[in-house]
């Protein structure tokens, strides 16, 4: 990262830390805003950026384009829920275990798919199929309670990872988001990251250079899976409920892919920019819907915009929105 980029990042971080305090102060000063709503939106941006980064680590940096990344998200979500609801674990303890489970699933899928030599579109399709298998299993096996889903007992104490004030979930999501940014940043400056990019750009050439392509790909998918699972665990800890569609629905896979693709796959800040853009679209359409009665069926509207953005980005702006912020940040890895 350039010095200027680092300055921007630090400034942004300070702003993000102060953000909830600022909106609360603005609310208290009588501005017509809803501070808790805005804090929640900020939490959503950070969270979406985090799961987007999970996709980006594998899909953007290593070129392992997955269409079923929700399989990790759902593994984490169910891991978190089952450990708490069935085995009575403390969520702070369950969370890292849930993330590790996701890492294990990533390792397993990677080991199977990459040993069979699946690449590109075939890899995308097999991840989709794995997500389907997990969804159907979650719908049928007894320990997930099938379509009924699992409830986590509400007990609002910080020791239980449940907070009365939304500000804490915001800071937790911010922490995840920053951690993910740091991981992505490390990929731009370590040998591991350089090997991944070499594999993305030309797998055969990378192998000829002596890179252990199989191991590197499995490693990065496990890392990405652990991150996705950590995100899933966080998500259901907020809503205290999980069912097969929440955990393994196709929509989440698409969302994870979209935020990175739209923001800029293979860039450090791509998922964050994408998450900001998509959350903004979401909230604006929701607001429109509450004002214009004809648009009360809003969910499709924001998705139409998402889909169109994906087509346009692939067609016209392959490096994503991030590439609009000056050439300096564009696929730094590639040139590093």
């Amino acid at each position: 990262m350039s010095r200027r980029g680092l300055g921007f990042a630090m400034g942004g971080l300070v702003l993000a830390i102060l953000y909830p305090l600022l909106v609360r102060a603005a609310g208290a000063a009588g501005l017509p805003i809803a501070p808790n709503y805005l804090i929640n939106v900020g939490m959503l941006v950070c969270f979406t950026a985090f799961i987007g980064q999970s996709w980006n680590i594998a899909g953007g940096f290593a070129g392992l384009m997955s269409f079923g990344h929700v399989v990790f998200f759902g593994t984490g979500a169910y891991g978190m829920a089952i450990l708490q609801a069935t085995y009575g674990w403390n969520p702070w303890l369950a969370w890292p275990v849930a993330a590790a489970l996701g890492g294990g699933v990533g390792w397993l899928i990677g080991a199977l798919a990459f040993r069979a030599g699946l690449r590109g579109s075939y890899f995308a399709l097999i991840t989709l199929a794995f997500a389907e298998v997990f969804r159907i299993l979650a719908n049928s096996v007894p320990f997930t309670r099938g379509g009924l889903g699992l409830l986590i007992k509400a007990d609002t104490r910080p020791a239980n990872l449940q907070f009365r004030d939304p500000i804490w979930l915001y800071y937790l999501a911010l922490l995840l988001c920053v951690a993910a940014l740091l991981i992505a940043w490390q990929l731009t400056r370590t040998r591991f990251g350089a090997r991944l990019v070499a594999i993305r750009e030309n797998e055969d050439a990378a192998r000829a250079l002596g890179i252990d392509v199989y191991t590197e790909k499995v490693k990065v998918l496990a890392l990405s899976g652990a991150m996705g699972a950590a995100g899933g665990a966080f998500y259901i800890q907020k809503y205290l409920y999980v069912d097969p569609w929440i955990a393994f629905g196709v929509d989440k896979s698409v969302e994870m892919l979209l935020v990175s693709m739209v923001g800029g796959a293979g860039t450090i800040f791509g998922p964050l920019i994408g998450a900001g853009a998509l959350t903004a679209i979401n909230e604006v359409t929701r607001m429109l819907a509450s004002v214009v009665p004809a648009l009360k069926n809003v969910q499709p509207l924001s998705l139409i915009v998402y889909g169109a953005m994906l087509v346009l980005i692939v067609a016209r702006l392959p490096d994503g929105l991030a590439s609009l912020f000056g050439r300096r940040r564009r696929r730094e890895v590639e040139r590093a």
Partner: protein
Amino acid sequence: MPDPAIILAGVLNGLLAGGIYVLVAVGLTLIYGVLHIINFAHGSLLMLAMYGVFFLWRLLGIDPYVALPIVIAGSFAFGYVLYRGLIGRFSHGRDENILLITLGLAIVFDNVALLLFTGDTQTIDVTYAGTIVQVGAAFLPLPKIISFLAAILLCGVLGLVMARSQLGKAIRAVAHERQGARLVGIDVEQVFAISYGIGIACLGAAACLLMPTFYVSPTSGHAFVLIAFTTVVLGGMGSFVGAAVGGLIIGVTESLGGLLLGEQLGQIGISLIFILILLLRPTGLFGAGR
């Protein structure tokens, strides 16, 4: 273990369901065989064609079977224009890009349908929908028998066109050796667009044959996407015979899976076949290998 007669009925029902999958998968395998792309919008385009059939019936009173030529022609035109205007132009010749663009299109189509037609399921009410033919212990709906026969017929016709006609020759040439085809004067982009159009036209036929016994909703396509991909992968990407055999195998697997494992867990068979084929024999049953 259930009664053999029930198993037989399950197999017959599975074969008929498989006929539908064949119809949906034939277009997908054609598009893959020629363009080497995975058309992720396939299910959504089927859903749009089904709405087309539904509205022809609802607004103009056109029977779905009578609508066949109209819907096939309309689907071909839609596919052709879609490829010329969007997919071919924006993909920059990269497989991953086409996958992403067709995914984006699928999201747009699904949600435009949701916005315009709401999430309600729509069905067509025709007198023959309930007609039952008894074969042994099995009671088979007549429209499903028709769609099964039509699927086989369609595979045969497509196979003939590919083998005998000038167009088929050009398509095969492009599928086999893009650069060489261009050098001997074939308009490659035109062949791509026509192939894509034919693939979508197959979906139009599938929609007409499906509607008498099926319903349509904006998410109807989803039910078919993974099944169609599985069919194509199982049969071998780009192979018509493979699509036909693959579709029938999957129909029977699903039917027997539902019978033996229960409705919920039974669906898992399809995804498992898909994964196993990709892992163990990615060229499928009839694939040429690359």
